[in-house]
């Protein structure tokens, strides 16, 4: 599935039934439309991303990728730079920050949205205009601050913003909004006000907004979710992960998460971040080892991989 290529770099994509995968890839070197076993790879790719505010480097030369068709989880301690990275990919950077590095998004040429299409369209997200970028990357933020009296449909319609001309109209809005509501399983919530929704319902509406933001854009647009399972009970967590899995079928999905067992169970790839640096990236079971967890989090972890998921128990390192 994944491993190391001849040059010792990690091979991020994987072949599925001989077809190409599309996704988002972030790496430390300049190479676009990377060939994997003679085929092109689709997805999101971050190369040498560095974000600094005066006196502090938040993200330090981070390179990783998120192939289309997979769920990629960013994990790491609080303040590791996970959210900062996600937001920067979506074009949101802290005040007075300097940003270096590249973010590439490769999608199937011809916008057919099918896996295995020959050819690759690569866009450098860090150089395209903000509206264009917003059509290709959608971000659902942690604790997304909702205006309580908006209805869900109105909130989803906000996702159409980057498609609008000055007068605030664009053809196909209604269709895009309804399709997004349906895809996120939020159609029955459409008339409810955000203030009256539960955390899980609200998260669905925010995801629907992200989908509406991309409808009509090139397929394979990236979906970034910051702590999507936060504050959700277990039933809603599973529900959300099921939705995310479905959405990942034809787009790169990147999410940040604190629960390592959840990442190991539900993500295809894990990017472990600490102090703004990428410590390891690759298959979940390869990245999340007890050694790494000890060095990054400073706790002992015993990992039990079962067919139905991964369980991790933690304890303090004895003095």
């Amino acid at each position, binding site marked *: 599935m994944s491993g190391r290529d001849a040059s010792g770099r990690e091979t991020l994509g994987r072949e599925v039934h001989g077809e190409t995968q599309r996704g988002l890839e972030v790496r430390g070197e300049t190479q676009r439309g990377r060939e994997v076993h003679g085929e092109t790879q689709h997805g999101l790719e971050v190369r040498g991303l560095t974000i600094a505010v005066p006196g502090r480097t938040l993200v330090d030369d981070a390179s990783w990728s998120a192939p289309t068709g997979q769920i990629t989880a960013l994990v790491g301690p609080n303040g590791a730079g996970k959210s900062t990275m996600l*937001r920067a990919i979506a074009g949101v950077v802290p005040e007075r920050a300097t940003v270096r590095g590249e973010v590439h998004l490769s999608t199937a040429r011809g916008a057919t949205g099918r896996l295995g299409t020959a050819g690759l369209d690569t866009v450098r997200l860090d150089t395209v205009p903000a509206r264009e970028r917003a059509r290709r990357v959608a971000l659902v*933020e942690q604790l997304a601050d909702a*205006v309580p009296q908006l209805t869900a449909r109105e909130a989803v319609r906000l996702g159409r913003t980057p498609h609008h001309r000055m007068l605030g109209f664009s053809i196909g809005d209604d269709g895009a909004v309804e399709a997004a509501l349906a895809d996120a399983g939020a159609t029955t919530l459409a008339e409810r006000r955000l203030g009256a929704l539960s955390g899980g319902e609200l998260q669905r509406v925010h995801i629907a907004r992200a989908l509406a933001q991309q409808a009509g854009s090139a397929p394979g647009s990236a979906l970034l979710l910051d702590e999507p399972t936060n504050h959700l009970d277990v039933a809603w967590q599973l529900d959300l992960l099921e939705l995310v899995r479905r959405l990942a079928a034809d787009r790169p999905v990147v999410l940040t998460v604190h629960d390592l067992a959840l990442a190991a169970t539900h993500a295809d790839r894990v990017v472990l971040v600490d102090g703004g640096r990428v410590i390891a990236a690759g298959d979940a079971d390869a990245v999340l080892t007890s050694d790494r967890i000890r060095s990054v989090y400073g706790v002992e972890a015993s990992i039990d991989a079962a067919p139905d998921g991964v369980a991790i128990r933690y304890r303090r390192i004895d003095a």
Partner: protein
Amino acid sequence: MLVAAALAAVCFGAAGIAPADAFASLAARLGVGTTPLSAIEDAIVVKLRMPRVLAACAVGAGLAIVGVVMQALVRNPLADPYLLGVSSGASVGAVLVLIAGLGVLLPVAAFAGALLALLATLGLAGAAGGATPTRTVLAGVVVASAASALVSLVIFWGADGDAYREILAWLLGSLASISWQSALIALVGAALALPLLVSGRLLDALSLGDSAAGALGVDARRTRWVLLVACALVTGVLVSVSGAIGFIGLVVPHAVRLVVGSSHALLLPASGLAGAIVLLVADTVARAAFDPRELPVGIVTALIGAPVFAALMLTGRVRT
């Protein structure tokens, strides 16, 4: 409804005039038919009441639209058009010329004062690190209180008798001295507010927060800066004509939001219309209710607006 209120406003007053006659008189001015009114009544309709009606509509609409935009820009339900200290700055200019007995210069002086206050507020917010909602509000509070202190100082020092009454009327907001010239200025102010009507999508996006707006491709900082300046200019023009009429820009947006919802594409024009109607009615009441004395319309809007706002708060309808 606006048209009906306007016609009623033209007719109400010390000199009662039948609606049909007023209409005919206006039509005659446009070259259709002849006026059934005497020369004096005709002059009252055309020279006194028409400009006042137009000014009330323009000022009311402009203030309400700016109020909506300001509330969205700083994400604060208590924001109103005067948040940036614009009206306080205008007051300084106005009071100075009124004391000096140069009443003709009032609109110019008021507008100049408004501009200075705007520059001070944005300069302060910018120097502190950028026009975030909180910084903008704080800078506005600082500038407004400094300007109010100046106004009090000038009044305490120099005002007497007529000048004092004149100043008070202006500070409270009044449409009593509206001429066709000042009505035209008000219309220009309202016209300047029209481009704000299409900012609905941007305001919707900003209401999600700056970073969510950024992820939607909207540059929150730049957008806020541009819209704040536009709002301040509109307010400055309107205030130079009418004085600082309170509560229209604060209460009307909240009341309209209850009816049409929070989506700005609809909220903006609806608030503009409602603001025009409310100020027109308030001004007619101010003019006619205590005949022959006339109240500054600012007293009427505050008398009505305060309890309305209190009621909205008590029912929990104001976004906090």
